[in-house]
């Protein structure tokens, strides 16, 4: 909007480094839809894995919503992330059923193993850990869901050892794939 001069402090000029075609397509699709902003952000996060600053600026440009409003929404909802995410997103349930079945101990074990805490990404970019409230599989508590480009998979009746074993499985798979 007001960045045309190109001398603002942010790096919105860098948006060239993102492929905008998919996003443009979607923006076109929803341009007459009421209340489309959250859909757009969800799509953008789908495409880029997170909401880069440059993309927020771009969406603001295209939709006429201020960047402040977009930022407000992106920070209100826990789903949106402003930083790049690991290849595998570990969603560890901390809902009531999982809590009473020991999900905190599992969090500790995972954090210790991956050397990250809730919301962080491992240095090698393989894993991001997110605590979530209930995945709806409470009868199998404690539960985690791992999401990556192949989709998502849910693991139930976790113990500390089982959780680490699953994560190790992903590590091996990534190494072999690389």
């Amino acid at each position: 909007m007001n960045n045309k001069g190109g001398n603002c402090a942010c790096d919105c000029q860098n948006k060239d480094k993102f492929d905008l075609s998919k996003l443009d397509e979607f923006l076109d699709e929803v341009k007459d839809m009421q209340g489309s902003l959250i859909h757009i952000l969800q799509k953008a996060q789908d495409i880029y894995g997170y909401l880069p600053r440059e993309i927020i600026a771009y969406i603001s440009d295209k939709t006429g919503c201020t960047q402040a409003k977009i930022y407000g929404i992106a920070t209100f909802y826990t789903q949106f992330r402003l930083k790049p995410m690991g290849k595998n997103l570990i969603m560890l349930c901390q809902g009531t059923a999982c809590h009473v079945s020991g999900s905190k101990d599992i969090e500790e074990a995972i954090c210790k193993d991956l050397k990250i805490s809730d919301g962080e990404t491992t240095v090698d970019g393989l894993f991001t850990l997110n605590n979530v409230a209930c995945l709806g599989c409470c009868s199998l508590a404690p539960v985690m869901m791992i999401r990556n480009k192949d989709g998502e998979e849910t693991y139930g009746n976790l113990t500390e050892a089982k959780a680490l074993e699953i994560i190790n499985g992903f590590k091996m798979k990534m190494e072999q794939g690389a």
Partner: protein
Amino acid sequence: MKIAIGQGSCGIASGSKKIEEAFRRHVAEHNLQAEVTITGCIGGCYLEPIVDVYQDDGQVVRYVHMTEDKVDKVVKQHLIGHEPVDEYRISKSGTDFLEKQTRIALKNCGLINPEDIRDYIKVGGYEALKKAIFEMDGKTICKEVERSGLRGRGGGGFPTGKKWGLVAAQKDPIKYVVCNADEGDPGAFMDRSVMEGDPHKMLEGMIIAGIAIGAKIGYIYVRAEYPLAVKRLKKAISQAEEWGFLGKNILGSKFSFEIRINLGAGAFVCGEGSALTASIEGNRGMPRVKPPRTVEQGLFGKPTVLNNVETFSHIPFIIANGAQIYRGIGTDRSPGTKAFALTGSVNKTGLVEVPMGTSLRELIFDIGGGIKNNKAFKAVQIGGPSGGCLTEKHLDLSLDFDSLSKVGAMVGSGGLVVMDEDTCMVSIAKFFMDFTEQESCGKCVPCREGTHLMNEILDDIVNGRGTKEQIDMLMELADTVTTTSLCGLGKTAALPVMSTIREFQDEYYAHVVEKRCPTGKCKGLKRIEIIANKCKGCGLCLDACPANAISGKRRQPHVIDKSSCTKCKLCIDSCKFDAIVEI
């Protein structure tokens, strides 16, 4: 012959995809005349993976806890040899769990293929819609629903027919139907199960609501944590469109209706009506002051019917069978059934749908099979973070809207988390307060600051810094937050604290006076100590301690200074003689 494999999220998480593959492989390999299909969650999640074999003679054999190895034997002995494998079949206790229930919303879950509309039609699906379109009009539908006495299953228990009537009476020609599928209560999953196991039933309910109030568009607001439910809903919507149950001129009538899906983005408060509509509009999901109410000015400022997934799923039954029959189930003031998610320290976990008015004892002990590992029952948390805890003395209480609110709890979503003697109630209260503090949208001060302050006090208590006065302060804060908050989140945020203080006062006192957690669960109240006669004085722990809390001379027992110990336990790891313990 048909083989149906349970593939709700819980089934899949227990490995049912592999079981499906195995069956498909065998059926192809042996050239068997058998159809392999999937079904939703039947509710007995503790029995997953579940496989039903429909024999050609009409008998159904149910196998539970299936594994790939077991598939081999089932194929050889049963599919080929026509002799069911008895040792893998569901036991008496398993069938009891299912047969002691009365199912309306969950009736087809686990029996039909949710991804095939023909299965739903075969069991009478969309008959109610036909009746609503061709034999009834908006007014008579509203009246019928009102006469049924159906009350909202999403928490509040507001009479559904009355709500529809209010919206229908609004002058604005544009109206909306919104389905609340945000299911935010951590520990509840009946809505997920309905969407994954029988999505058409809820769609049918929404379409009927559309006729009742004269709306053309319905929205479903689903939480993003339910990817499978979203996938099945999308499929169901497009199939319903193909079959003419949705879209323009439904079944050739003048009535047109479309349904859109909105994905939630992870905010508990968006389950609240006005926050949910704000979120669909593309804004931050923050509740607003009422009035105007959602029935007057809801989505995009238009009159809106907002109901829960389960509520909509009761509608086809009511329309098809009539209000009178529905009223015959449940209690006089809370007719019908309610699905509860039975989880925690109970033997049989899963979904239980029973008539309103069933007692906790029946739910937990008769149907749920009692407490795990022969422990003693302590309490059950009902309605999640905005509910309360019920104890031994409430076991025979009738579970319905009015009896529960009388004892300071609520039906809420229907999450029932069972807790055994080893659960510390103070830390449970802290857990819920953590949750509400984080989920408070921050708009009103009592909720934003009140939940934070209460959480701080609870933090003090579970870490041994609490005082008796703080318990009084908690009660005072609870009262303020309850009476002055803007929306239901704040108004109910203190319920878990108030009910645990009321029921488990001794436990709170043990934490603040004796600095002891009776269940030993509060890590903050534990101490690390060196056992003098085991300590060789080697000094390893002294070097390992980052807080310099350990002192002692070489070859003499060392000691830990409690005030500087951070309980990091590095010393325990370093000790070669098991001389350091946590007590």
